């Protein structure tokens, strides 16, 4: 019988045994559109450098920056080196390692809607791949203004740079930054445009919150431990609070934020993604589609806010002048690039319900704002009180148990419970049992972008948002925007102010107080 020669590359690597936890992607080139922008310098290249430093990138890997700004390879390398020195997790930058890394950094100037520029890009890519022995695997990162998403993808299609997946062929994947649309209609339109060129399996819509270690640990916490999931439902949970607060203002992005506002900027993507992970049913497997199917069910089960009761479910506000970290800061309307009569919200608080068997009757309170006293993102699960207050007869207050999952900073999980104070009297004090990544494992968790870039190179979409998830979240959020638009048209916009450095407007406090609850101080 004639022997069939198997190419060496198809033979498995036996030396990987026992080293399997180190997931190394196939050799590839990453093309970054918008490479002269801030994200590339502050996040993307520092993440790629740190991955290289940790030997998590393949031996052969190249980065080709593409942008409108004219510069040569050396200038691009120098700019990225400065970015890594300032922002990389692995600092200081190691000179020999940087020299080796930088040799494979390239830059190409071009416009996003210029077919000729994309032909030049194709030629350059092929030349780089030939020189470095790269097999043609490509990741295209769209770090551009949202208006350029569709033109870039169209140009990729015209230049035949992003063929659909086929067995045995090199891969072409596209990472798309947020915001993915500005409402349901634009998100749907963008999905349609993207799907004209790309298969959904090629699309990686990035939400950097999902790359954070605690967000991933939330799934481990819920589904790898037997003791929490039985409590994770309306029988035991009184309510859930999700907070995403920032101390910063608009930081020179007044023009962008004027169009966005907190609901678009934080809630539609980050907070609803976190909510869906906290509330979803157990997936049948820890695989991309299985996890995303369950998240989608949560987003589809979000009850639309009743028109008649809108103000008791939605509070928006705008920060006024105040103080942050001992420094006086201006109000939003005095920020550069902001309309002095702006009605854009910098704070939003929401009360929402998930119409599902598990969560029936459990309110989820979400809040997000700029210029709040501290930067923190956390989920707090407030459990119901004990059914019979055996120890509360003499007027002691016994606080309900709270499980708080801190996503940033100082990632970790804490459980508050009551404990008897030592002594003859039956006095109860709250104590906290804490797990913190920093102190428990003694390691610094990787940056979210490191994890997400690596996952994309490995073809793992679990931590990326699928098209139908984006549409489901926009579907819920857009109703709020439409209501606000109607109020504006009727000249009835209500926009309370809150002092910078406070936890938001009184209306947000009153929203919870009406339910006999209060915002937690994270």
């Amino acid at each position: 019988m004639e022997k069939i020669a198997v190419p060496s590359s198809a033979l498995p690597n036996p030396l990987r045994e026992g080293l399997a936890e180190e997931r190394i992607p196939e050799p590839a080139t990453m093309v970054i559109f918008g490479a002269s922008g801030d994200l590339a310098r502050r996040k993307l290249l520092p993440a790629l450098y740190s991955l290289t430093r940790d030997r998590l990138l393949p031996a052969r890997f190249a980065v080709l920056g593409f942008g409108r700004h004219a510069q040569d390879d050396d200038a691009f390398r120098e700019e990225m080196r400065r970015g890594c020195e300032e922002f990389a997790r692995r600092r200081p930058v190691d000179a020999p390692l940087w020299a080796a890394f930088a040799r494979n950094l390239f830059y190409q100037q071009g416009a996003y809607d210029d077919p000729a520029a994309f032909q030049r890009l194709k030629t350059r890519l092929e030349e780089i791949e030939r020189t470095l022995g790269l097999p043609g695997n490509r990741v295209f990162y769209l770090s551009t203004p949202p208006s350029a998403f569709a033109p870039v993808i169209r140009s990729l299609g015209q230049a035949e740079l992003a063929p659909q997946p086929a067995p045995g062929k090199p891969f072409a994947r596209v990472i798309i930054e947020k915001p993915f649309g500005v409402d349901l209609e634009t998100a749907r339109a963008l999905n349609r445009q993207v799907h004209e060129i790309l298969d959904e399996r090629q699309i990686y819509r990035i939400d950097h919150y999902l790359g954070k270690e605690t967000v991933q640990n939330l799934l481990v916490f819920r589904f790898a431990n037997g003791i929490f999931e039985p409590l994770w439902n309306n029988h035991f949970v009184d309510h859930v609070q999700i907070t995403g607060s920032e101390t910063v203002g608009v930081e020179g992005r007044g023009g962008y934020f004027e169009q966005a506002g907190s609901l678009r900027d934080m809630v539609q993507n980050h907070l609803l993604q976190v909510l869906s992970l906290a509330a979803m049913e157990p997936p049948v497997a820890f695989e991309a589609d299985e996890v995303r199917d369950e998240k989608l069910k949560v987003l589809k089960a979000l009850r639309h806010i009743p028109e008649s009761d809108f103000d008791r479910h939605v509070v928006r506000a705008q920060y006024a002048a105040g103080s942050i970290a001992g420094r006086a800061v201006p109000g939003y309307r005095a920020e550069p690039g902001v309309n002095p009569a702006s009605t854009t919200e910098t704070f939003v608080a929401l009360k929402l319900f998930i119409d599902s068997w598990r969560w029936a009757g459990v309110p989820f309170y979400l809040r997000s704002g700029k210029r709040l006293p501290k930067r923190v993102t956390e989920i707090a699960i407030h459990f119901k009180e004990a059914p019979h207050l055996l120890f509360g007869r003499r007027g002691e207050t016994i606080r309900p148990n709270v499980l708080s999952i801190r996503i940033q900073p100082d990632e970790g999980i804490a459980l508050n419970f009551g404990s008897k104070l030592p002594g003859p009297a039956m006095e109860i004090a709250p104590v906290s049992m804490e797990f913190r990544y920093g102190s428990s494992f003694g390691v610094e968790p990787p940056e979210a972008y490191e994890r997400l870039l690596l996952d994309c190179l490995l073809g793992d979409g679990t931590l990326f948002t699928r098209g139908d998830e984006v549409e489901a979240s926009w579907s819920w959020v857009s109703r709020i925007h439409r209501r606000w638009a109607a109020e504006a048209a009727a000249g009835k916009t209500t926009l309370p102010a809150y002092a910078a450095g406070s936890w938001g407007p009184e209306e947000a406090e009153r929203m919870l107080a009406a339910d006999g609850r209060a915002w937690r101080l994270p």
Partner: protein
Amino acid sequence: MSDQTQNLGDAARANFERFARGEPIAVDVGEIERELGSLWQQASSAGGSQTGAALARAALWNLVLPTRGREELAKTKALVDAIAPAVPVRAITLCLDDAAGQSELSATIESNVVSRPGGGRVVYSEEITLVGPAGAEAHFGAMVRALQVPGVRTATLWMNTAMPAALLTRELLPVTHQLIVDTASCTGPLHLQDLQRLASRAHPLPVADLGWLRLASFRLLFAGMFDPPVGGGPLRSATRLEVKHRKGGDVSALLIVAWLGQLLGWRPLRSAETPAGGLRFDFERVDGGSVEAFLVPGAGPCDQSAILSIELASGPDEYVVSRDAIDEARVQLPIAPARTVKLDAYSDADICVAALGPRGHDPLFARCLEYAGRLWSLEPRNADRR
């Protein structure tokens, strides 16, 4: 208040202050738990008044560390101090002090407090040290059983091959969940066989080897060369392997050869000394071809793993990982230009912490250790020692 009461109060306060600073406090062997409990209570009161929060003692592991002699004891205690920030453990250090004046066991307790940036203390763990003269090992087993934090796994760090083996096999293994050894402490391949026997006796306990973990960076780099598109083909048709190692690091080099031989199915045939003072092994490949492997002692910048380079020839092609500096290596393979990569420099404490995690459960190590033992039994110099 009587003078006596006043003096007792002063002594307790002084002990607490020393405890809070992490200094050792001598205690009666029978009162260790009570003394620890009392000191933690004081620490909690002191901490609580400052921060408004109760303190918690933390222990993810009981870590038992048998040592011999004061010098080794000091090194071991320094190691515990370095491990504590990463993994809170109750460290139970056992020291046989042949020069000890006293005939009975003595005990000290101390805290390991890890501070958060800004000064807040976050992790509190504790360290118990028992010292006794030769023969005191008869008491160590019972002491360890009494001092284990219940419900917490126990790891025994068995670094000193000169310790009485019976202490481990009779007393400690029955209460151990993870045995940690260090092949780097072997002064020659003969000790490797001792460790192999020990690992066999410990079965089915997981055995982690600090030496094996130190080799992980090099193994990973070398293995990475045979990921797609190169694939495993060149490994199947390998003809020559050369492992350069620092003098005295032949055990590490032997483990590298064992790693490759084990995973690639090479059958050991014979061995010989080389004129350069190294060793040569001959193998038969799965397809019947032959492979010659060399252990070559040399000099150069190197960490405790002792490996300087690994070179594999497959037909005309060469696949090389060589160390340029302690924390830097060069990777050369036929299809791409050579590149420099960073090698992480791990401290012993880092490696111990890794051994207490998932990487401490590597079934491949046991297979490679057994294979290395077979290689060693081929070694001509050992004919009279077999």
